[in-house]
């Protein structure tokens, strides 16, 4: 129950933050954080819910968020086997990967749907991902550890 409340509050705050910063994604860093903390079941449910939310409010036909979040989840699951995740280098690398993945995915989806989107807008949103991904990731991990893990000990 406590977990559901925590994630409901996070989702509501995320939607509000996305309202104030157009183009920002508050949920991808949280998915990365969930995988980092080993919350695999939570990741599965949150991915489903957040895909529906982002697809519902977005202007593109279904597919972008599934591909983007799928790429994030696969990267973090795969990197768990190869890299040490709690290093600064991995942290920076993951942020660059997310921004790059956003850029490529949005390019694929807009060209598949024959939509004309100015390149500066995609670059702008990728930069937002690059900057905010590590910030939100850190905030999510720290706050979740503080309220959900520490309080259970």
């Amino acid at each position: 129950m406590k977990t559901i409340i925590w994630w409901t509050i996070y989702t509501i705050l995320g939607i509000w933050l996305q309202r104030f910063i157009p183009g920002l994604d508050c949920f991808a860093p949280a998915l990365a954080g969930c995988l980092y903390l080993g919350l695999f079941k939570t990741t599965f449910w949150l991915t489903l819910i957040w895909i529906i939310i982002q697809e519902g409010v977005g202007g593109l036909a279904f597919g972008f968020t599934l591909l983007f979040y799928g790429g994030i989840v696969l990267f973090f699951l795969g990197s768990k086997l190869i890299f040490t995740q709690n290093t600064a280098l991995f942290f920076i690398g993951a942020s660059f990967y997310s921004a790059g993945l956003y850029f490529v995915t949005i390019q694929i989806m807009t060209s598949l749907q024959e939509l004309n989107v100015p390149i500066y807008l995609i670059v702008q949103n990728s930069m937002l991902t690059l900057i905010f991904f590590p910030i939100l990731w850190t905030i999510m991990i720290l706050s979740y550890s503080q309220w959900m893990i520490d309080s259970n000990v």
Partner: protein
Amino acid sequence: MISKRNKFLLLFVFLPIALYISVYTWNWHTGTIDRFASYTGLEFVGWVLEPGIWVQNKTKSMWNNYIDLVDIGKENRRLREKLKQTKLQVFKLKQKNAEYNRLQELLKFSPPKDWKYQGARILAHELGPNAVLKTLLVSKGKTDGISKNTPVVTPEGVVGKVLRTSAHYSTVLLLTDPNSRIPVKGKKSRTNGIIQGQGPYSDLKLSYVPKNAQLFEEEILVTSGLGRIFPKGIPVARVQDIEKSDLSLFKQVGAKPVSKLKKLEEVLLIEMNSQIPKKLQDKFTRK
């Protein structure tokens, strides 16, 4: 026998890709997942934002009242308070007056014959990473009779059209988006063309205006009604510059939207009154 490596590739690479392409193609043809996402995701976000906006406005006014009443000296307390209250009242009245004027402007708007309109509040602009199109989230949806392609206007002119709807909320594609195309004609010259968005930081582009067609600078472009989405005669943009190119058969025309898109708080959604087609349908069914 399939090797372990091939099994891994099949399970985690080829199968998900094939599944993704199948789902994507199925949705592209039927739109089922898009409709489901709109009815759940868009609706949820609308429910999250709308009460928050109400609370935000209330808190702002309460905070302003609190700030206004703090640090009043004892000696002049009554006088100052009276003055402040009067000021606050004037401010509130000004706000109300501005709102009254705005709403009166909305009421003045006379929709073309056979079209009815309703007001909607803007809840958000581009929301989330998926929103790469220039869009607005408004507080009217399918239950209010709004459907895809419903024209969105202000008393000044066209804002855009509805892109997708949920039960109580809709996403509006702005006319400045590069994917927006509206058939227009010059109010004075009656020359036809198609107005196209060029992105939020650029002017609109009027395409397919023949080189020898008449068109004036500062001329208002109105909807021509040819697209059967917008009613005829609603102002869209004002012609800014006209250039003739030696290489093209058409004029290069730049225009500015007549609606102040960055300062919008409310919009009007107009839908064609379905009474006439219904009557016709009844006539046919009776026969």
